[in-house]
């Protein structure tokens, strides 16, 4: 009895339990940290033989399920800042559409794989290191209940954010700054979502926590809502433009991930914010190192498929 399933778009068979396990682990992290988990899922799928572009597109579809589940839970708890999410979303839709077109161009040039890997390493390295050192400071500096309550540091980025026009108050998060800020990050995350097959939570969460100084629980709910909307857009566009969403792959992953996400959301209540963040940053850095080693170590085979299928 074979426990594998044939993925019609990827054109390969993969073990069902492996996919369920991947979905479960990534979903758990998703529920724990309020991220889609795509930054882990796409590279893991590539490692088990799913082509990069199909892994990224199908993963967006899977994230729709995990984040729908998480968003529902957080919306019930009142921890979604819909005004913030709306602006992030507006930017995300524009960015996601740009990203899908960009991937199409890169695929025809045969460079999609490299761009995906390089984008991952840069983003994961930057975000992971920043989060790691920030939370380490937080843990060392004694109790720091939540970043929103912490004293605002006058970093150049923070000064820039404060100087922008179109100021807006976000009641749920209890912060006030320019509407351009979430719009800008929405576009950036939307592009990354399409290129990397991620919801962008692992970038958006630190941006909201550190730059926008929103309370952690609102950050997670808002991030999940924004991820949900961005990934719906990316999935539909990837399916319509690039034909690389494997719904069988996505459905099996999501069975694992929706269960994992719920367990993660429950477990997250037992950890403090800084502990959560340092754990998250370590995971981000490990994935980044794995990908970096892939670029630094001599490959087993000195040729690769290129220029599409």
């Amino acid at each position, binding site marked *: 009895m074979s426990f594998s399933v044939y993925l019609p778009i990827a054109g390969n068979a993969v073990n069902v339990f492996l996919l369920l396990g991947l979905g479960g682990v990534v979903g758990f992290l998703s529920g724990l940290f309020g991220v889609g988990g795509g930054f882990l899922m796409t590279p893991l799928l590539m490692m088990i033989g799913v082509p990069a572009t199909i892994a990224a597109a199908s993963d967006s579809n899977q994230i729709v399920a995990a984040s729908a589940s998480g968003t529902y839970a957080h919306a019930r708890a009142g921890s979604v800042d819909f005004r913030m999410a709306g602006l992030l979303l507006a930017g995300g839709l524009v960015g996601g559409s740009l990203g899908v077109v960009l991937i199409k161009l890169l695929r025809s040039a045969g460079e999609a794989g490299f761009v995906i890997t390089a984008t991952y390493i840069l983003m994961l390295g930057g975000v992971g290191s920043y989060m790691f050192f920030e939370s380490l400071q937080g843990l060392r500096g004694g109790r720091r209940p939540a970043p929103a309550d912490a004293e605002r540091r006058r970093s150049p980025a923070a000064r820039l954010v404060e100087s922008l026009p179109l100021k807006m108050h976000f009641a749920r998060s209890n912060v006030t700054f320019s509407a351009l800020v979430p719009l800008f990050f929405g576009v950036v995350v939307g592009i990354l979502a399409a290129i990397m097959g991620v919801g962008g939570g692992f970038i958006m969460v630190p941006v909201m926590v550190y730059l926008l100084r929103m309370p952690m629980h609102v950050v997670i709910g808002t991030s999940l809502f924004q991820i949900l909307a961005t990934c719906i857009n990316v999935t539909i566009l990837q399916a319509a433009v690039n034909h690389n969403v494997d719904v069988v792959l996505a459905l099996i992953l999501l069975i694992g991930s929706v269960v994992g996400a719920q367990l993660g959301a429950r477990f997250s209540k037992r950890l403090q914010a800084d502990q959560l963040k340092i754990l998250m940053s370590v995971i981000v850095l490990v994935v980044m190192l794995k990908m970096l080693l892939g670029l630094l170590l001599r490959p087993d085979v*000195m040729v690769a498929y290129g220029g599409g299928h």
Partner: protein
Amino acid sequence: MTGRGAGVPGRAVAGLLLGLLVLAGTPAPAGGETPGGTGALAALTVMPDDVRADLLFNGALLHVRGTIPEGGQAAIVCAGPGGRLKLRRKGRVWGLFWLNTGEIVFDDVPSLYLLCTSAPVAQLAPTVVLNRLGAGLDALESRAAFAGPAAERRTLFGEMVRLKTGEGLYAVAEGAARLRPGAPGTLDVAADLFLPARTPPGEFTVRLMSFRGGDGSVVAESTVALRQAGIAAFISRMAHERGLLYGIVSVVLAIAAGMLTGVVFGRGSRRPH
């Protein structure tokens, strides 16, 4: 997941003819083919010859049976259609990163190449004969046209073979074809070839070759087809022909599954952090 294709009436007729010929005490021609060379005639069956890839498809084992003249050695090749293969070669960039650098192109390389022989390939026949028949990886290389740095042709072809071998799309099993005395003057050949799940759907040619006294020939030929079927075929068609609708359905399914679990797990108190 796999099944026999049509052609039953044809086989019945062939079986009848075969019976008559055996009664007449002559060797049996297969499908009317009487290739020259070693002078013997052979039947070739491939089971299954019509492989369907549905959701539970995990590759297929092809049982190939045939006959060759007594005293010879056999090779069975299952090969995909030859075509252009574009590859990126990996090279060091800035002395640090291994990246895809230049593009190389091989023409006339099969998408699938499964070879099973009764003896080491090099002992079957001289290189010129092997090349003519397309038996062995060296023969593939000799046939392939190459666009890239000429000095590295051999190395890069070897790397391409390693890439394909890693995926199971190229496989050479020397000595794995079994020979057994058959009808007078013939040897029965039996070999199992594994068609991996990642084989691109299409039609593949199966050839039985016979080698004796430094010469060789194709003594029988058949085909095996791999196609997506059932739900897998439906999904594939939807994805490629009605992409937008397919995307929307995928999203709706995902939201429904996510919300359903949210509701199931959300019973009772829910207060993140």
